[in-house]
Every structure is written in C-alpha cells, then in structure tokens.
C-alpha cells in the first residue's frame, strides 16, 4: 500500500535528530495539502514522527510503513502540510 506524495526526502543513513530536522524544513517549502515522503533508517524515527505530528500545528502524519530491504529495515513516513 503506497501513499501518494509530492516530494521525497531521503534521510537514510542519518541519525536522530536529522531525519526530523530535515523533514521539518522540507514541510515548510510545501504547499498546503501536499505530502512529504520521508525515508529513514533510524528506527527511533517511527515514534518520533508520531510525537512530532502531535506537537506541530501544521502537519498531519498520514501514514507510516516499514519496508525490509536486504535485511535492513527502512522506515517510511508520509507527512502532510495542513497549515
């Protein structure tokens, strides 16, 4: 099940907090209603994106997926700009 998105942010190989810091910057560049797809290898990003979406007034977490590629997990987050 793949979500529709408008922009892709590759945060693979980045440690906490960079996937979230970079996603936050990218969201600011999107139009209202657009969706950013973030691909990360940091497992902690799953809970962190959930927590961030609750605090941030301008984003909604519209989906999360875990994909396994060659034994390594990739964590995918879909974030929509709402304000």
């Amino acid at each position, binding site marked *: 099940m793949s979500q529709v998105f408008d922009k892709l942010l590759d945060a693979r190989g980045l440690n*906490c*907090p960079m996937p979230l*810091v970079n996603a936050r910057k990218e969201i*600011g560049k999107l139009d209202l209603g657009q969706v950013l797809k973030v691909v990360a290898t940091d497992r*902690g990003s799953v*809970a*962190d994106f959930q927590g*961030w979406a609750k*605090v941030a007034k301008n984003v909604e977490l519209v989906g999360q997926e875990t994909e396994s590629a060659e034994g390594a997990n990739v964590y995918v987050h879909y974030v929509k700009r709402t304000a």
Partner: protein
Amino acid sequence: MAELLNHDVWTAGDLLSRLERRDKFFVLDVRNRDEFERFRLEGRSPVPAVNVPYFEMLELGGKDDMLDSVVAYVERDLADQLPSDLPILAVCAKGDTSEFVAQGLSCLGYASANLNGGMKTWGEYYATRAVVEAPDLAIYQVGRPARGCLSYMVASAGKAIVIDPLRHLHPYLGLARESSLTIEAVIDTHGHADHISGGVALATATGASYYLHPYDAIHPIDVLPATIPYEFIRDGQTFPLGRHELEALHIPGHTLGLVAFRIDDRYLFTGDSIFIRSIARPDLGGKAETWAPLHHRSLRRLLDLPGEITVLPGHFSSLDEADETGRFAALLNDLKKRNDGLVVLQRESEEGFVRYLLESLPKFIPEYVDIKRVNAGLLTPAEEDAATLELGKNVCALSQAYAISEGVRR
C-alpha cells in the same frame, strides 16, 4: 548556527562513578515520554530529571536548526525548571541528539554534559568487580548497572566457571584473557525472563559445556521444549573447579528449574531467590499460586545454610543495595535482619508468606514471555530487537524492592 562551545562528555563509566559517589547533577532527558518512563537513570540517591522530547524542543523552539531550537526553547520555556547550580546531563537514546542539547545548554551558560552513546550505551555498560581475588579462588561480579543484572566468573587454578552470563560476551572473554583463565563450564541458574542470556553463545565461543536445569528447558507459558543445546543440572551435582567445587541446590519458586550454587560454607550464588533488599517474584511463569509454596520451601532451605555464607545475588533493584565498594554481596545472617522478604519469611507461616508473595507482585512485563522464548531458542531476534526487548531495569523482585525509587519519582 551557534558556535561549538565547551561542554563535558560523560562516558557510561563516568556516569556510574558519579552515581556511586552520589554526585549531584540534573538530567535533561529528550527521549519520548514512554521511553523515559520505561528506563530512567537511577542512582544510589534519586537523580532529579525533566523529560522534554527533542521533537517538542525542535517544534516549539521553532528554528530550522536543532541547536538554535534548543537554545530558544530552553531560554523561553525551560529555564525555570533547570537548576543553575548543578551540572546538567543531556540524555537521549543514542547520544547524538543530546549532543545538540548539551551544546545549547552550554551556549546559555549552564555547566552541561552529554551522555556519550545515550541510554543504549548506558544500558549495555558492564562493570566488573572482584568479590574475592585470592590465589586459590577468585570471584568476579560482572554486572550491568543500568539493568540491575549480575553474573559471576568463578576462577581457581587457571579454570573458570561462568554463572548467568549476560548477553554481551566481551566482559567474560576479556577477563578470561587478562587472567589467563580457561572457561570450562557455563551455567544458567534458571531460564531468565528479564534479560537475554549469553550462556549458549559463551559456551559456543569457548568450547565449554552449557548447563541448565531441565525444568527450565521448557517454556512455562508455551509449554514447548527448548531447542538450545544444554547439559542437565541436578540437585546436589558438583562442578569441580581447581581446589574447590560448586554444589547445585535445586530451589524451585521463581522458576521450576531454579538452581543456587554454593562453594563450601563461604559463597552462595542465589540466582533469582534471595537478593540484597528483597526476594524474587514467583509469577513470571504465569503460575504464581502454584509456585509460591515451592518458593516458600526453597527459601526456607536457603535460610538453613550457615549464616556466615556470603550471598551473591542475580539481581539488584537499586544501586543503593551495593556495599560501599560497589559490590552486591552480604552475609546471610545480615540479610535475615534486613531483607524485606526474609524478615517476612521468618515471621510468617507458609500460608501467611504465600499471601505476602501474591500481594507483592509487580506488574507483569509482557516482553518477559518473549525473552524466555529467546533464551529457550524458540525465538531469534535481530540485534536491535534484542536490545529493545531488554530495555530498562529488571523487574524480577517483589514490588517492595521498587517502592523506594517509585516513591521519590513523585
């Protein structure tokens, strides 16, 4: 971006020394709230702490850059909660994000430090202390201070037996190398629920045999046999070691196959039966009512041992249980007077003691069922999952053991 300013970096070893010395410092923990609740820094004395997840600092600080957000957030929203006269230790899961936090605090004039490697490194830190180090007998207590897990390497005449090795093998292999010891046997006192055993892996790495009581080679909840290779331990069996021997005492209660080991009338490795402040819980196999009377009988058996025997437990619940040298050890006679569970045991009938046990059960930890599966070879987690399963302090003792640290949290 603000300039990189000087802040301190504490290793896990530095942190342990400070906790043992009761140094005063304050913790700013930037993990998620549930991670913070499940696994906190605890010392001999309470460690004051505040928890603000880093994504809240980032969002509410409102800057593009993490460091700038930390500075803005702390200055505006957190300054009134931070002491100005104590060092502030920034803590996160792996030590990268807390680096920004320590830097930000330093920019604002606080004496700050970063916990190197974060709670992951602290949780996997090992401390080794010699309980006795004589030419004919050495006993090393190898512990994970953050988890409250204790294991032992017993050595005599160049040979060693390892009791309850924990998940990482480097402390045992390192000690064997440094002291020119050959590890001849690896023993688990029981099938552990709170941590992943290093037993089979250590036996494989050293060519030693791995021993377990057969009752604990059946997962108590799945009722499935273990797939790991092991040799049986039976009650009264002796394991020769140089000029000494370890004698097995089958003491079911915490598990059905729990075994304690004694060296003469000098040392008693109690596994999960008698700890320093408290005793083990009987419910982790899901059969508390059935196992509690067994636990009672087994503890009585241990109480009948000579009072001058030194108890070396499998766990502690608080660093405060250590003696002044940081070792978790006490004479049985001494524990009869100050161990909560043993005091009740000596006072009550079997019925009264069973009631006490059942009324003192801490919350059941769901992960413990899976950890027992891992230890029986019924489940094989990836490294990251293994670390997550083990996260936090063990909860193998009755609830009284935690009352003190719980009490100060509020």
